[in-house]
């Protein structure tokens, strides 16, 4: 019986042929990724997004290591709801395991101590690592220069501007505050992380007090001349929903704080608080400062908006809140910058050219109570003449607060957390 060429033989031959051809490439990929190694400092919205999208868009041909000092991701978006009482900090806390597992990202829990650009090496407290390209996504660092005593007084006067135990602390202080008490908070001079955040916070605290301690008041001391995000909407909410509770005072920068008596001095007045929340001015996070990349006002980092490469250091990219830009320092913006940077790095490392005119969107919700939210949404477009990202026509804010937008805001959080962390 002559041997007939069966379908099974076909498949056997085909798969043998396939494995013969594929084997050397698979081996090469397992031992050393052909396109190099990107190290990312910071596992927040920006850094974690960059890690995932570099892996996805390079089809795992670029190795990625994230260095993050915290074991957990705690979302700043929605953390004001912890103060209002409709969320717990444990609703906003996540692990990094899916980000690592789903995309093969190497993760090092450590703190960066030095960066050597000559040897392309990052040194941490417990080791060192080499990179071909480095992304710095460190978020913000608080500036206590003007009032250094506040740095040691964070237990009594929390900033709660990085979500975590300070958020919980501030909530506990509100819970024990007597009815008729005074909550005082400030808004630092812009730019700072999350432009509408302080005004959302005032609403959340006011919402809690209105329902639980109705004789209490909220004073907002704003270093800026006016509400700097969603102004019309927040003004209306302050004056209508929280009439007699929120007292908004613009042009009122803090000059001094007496920690023991929780008394704030501004250029115009002295205010004694029962619960005091001081949000310090901010600058690019410490790893960006190590290389002096915060060249704008000694605070923020100047970058090329096509690649997010630092204007001061080749092969080093900066993304997220540390970037100097006419862009809101929001979580969505951090992820949008991260993806443009990721796409450009994949292009450069695989020998092609980055997009010359990136466009991306930003949507930012603020909750005005436990259920209703408002938004600001814009498309941003690269301006080739100015070489910066500018807001496109057509963006804008909600007509009014609504429960529907409250649901959308929840969907936004669910989706952005899932996109970043899985």
């Amino acid at each position, binding site marked *: 019986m*002559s*041997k*007939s*060429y069966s379908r099974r033989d076909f498949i056997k*031959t*085909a798969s043998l*042929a*396939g494995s013969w*051809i594929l084997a050397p490439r698979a081996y090469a990929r397992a031992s050393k990724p052909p*396109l190099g190694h990107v190290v990312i400092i910071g596992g927040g919205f920006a850094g974690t997004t960059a890690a995932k999208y570099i892996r996805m*868009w390079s089809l795992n*041909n670029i190795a990625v290591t994230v260095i993050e000092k*915290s*074991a957990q991701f705690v979302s700043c978006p929605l953390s004001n709801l912890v103060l209002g009482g409709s969320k717990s*900090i444990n*609703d*906003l*806390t996540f692990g990094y395991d*899916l980000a690592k597992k*789903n995309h093969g990202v190497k993760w090092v829990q450590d703190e960066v101590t030095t960066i050597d650009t000559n040897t392309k090496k990052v040194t941490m407290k417990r080791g060192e690592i080499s990179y071909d390209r480095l992304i710095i996504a460190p978020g913000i660092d608080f500036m206590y220069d003007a009032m250094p005593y506040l740095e040691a007084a964070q237990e009594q006067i929390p900033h709660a501007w990085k979500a*975590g*135990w*300070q958020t*919980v602390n501030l909530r506990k202080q509100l819970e024990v505050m007597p009815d008729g008490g005074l909550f005082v908070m400030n808004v630092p001079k812009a730019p700072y992380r999350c432009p509408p955040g302080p005004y959302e916070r005032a609403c959340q605290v006011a919402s809690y007090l209105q329902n639980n301690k109705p004789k209490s008041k909220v004073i907002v001391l704003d270093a800026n001349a006016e509400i700097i995000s969603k102004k019309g909407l927040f003004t209306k909410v302050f004056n209508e929903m929280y009439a007699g509770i929120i007292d908004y005072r613009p042009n009122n920068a803090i000059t001094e704080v007496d920690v023991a008596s929780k008394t704030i001095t501004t250029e115009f007045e002295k205010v004694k608080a029962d619960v005091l929340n001081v949000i310090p001015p901010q600058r690019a996070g410490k790893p960006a400062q190590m290389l002096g990349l915060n060249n704008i006002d000694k605070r923020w980092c100047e970058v090329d908006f096509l690649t997010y490469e630092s204007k001061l250091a080749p092969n080093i990219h900066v993304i997220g809140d540390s970037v100097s830009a006419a862009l809101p320092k929001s979580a*969505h913006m951090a*992820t949008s910058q991260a*993806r443009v940077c990721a*796409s450009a790095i994949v*292009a450069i490392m*695989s020998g*092609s*050219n*980055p*997009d*010359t*005119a*990136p466009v*991306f*969107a*930003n*949507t930012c919700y603020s909750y005005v109570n436990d259920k209703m939210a408002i*938004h600001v*949404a*814009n*498309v941003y477009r690269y301006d080739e003449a100015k070489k910066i990202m500018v807001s*496109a*026509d*057509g*963006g804008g804010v909600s007509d009014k607060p*609504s429960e*529907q937008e409250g*649901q*959308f805001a929840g969907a*936004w959080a*669910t*989706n*952005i*957390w*899932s996109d970043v962390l*899985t």
Partner: protein
Amino acid sequence: MLFNKISTLVWLIGCLILTSVAYAAEVSVLSSTPNEQHTRTLAASCAACHGTNGNSAGVSPVLAGLDATYFTTQMLAFKNGSRTSTVMHHHAKGLKADEINDLAVYFSQQNRVANSTLKPQTLRVNHE
């Protein structure tokens, strides 16, 4: 026998071609054109509400695998105001018609996949 040998050879060649095509496709994705990058980063910025590659993790519509014509029609309706919305008109009005068309094609080509379930955790005592 001869037939078998020829057919084996044909299959081997076929496999080589297929593998080369797969490899070429991979390389072409890596060395994507600036316009392909433009569309993928723009599409990815929709992920905050609509999930990775348009696979929504909840509430917001899934865009992955959506009919391209339907996508374009709806986006143009948001853009010109004939479909009312709370948020989408602020995005659609900022986009050019060709960007909307490119997004439509991009999302129509994405597979619908189930998202990994992200579970919240208890904040550890040693966190900042």
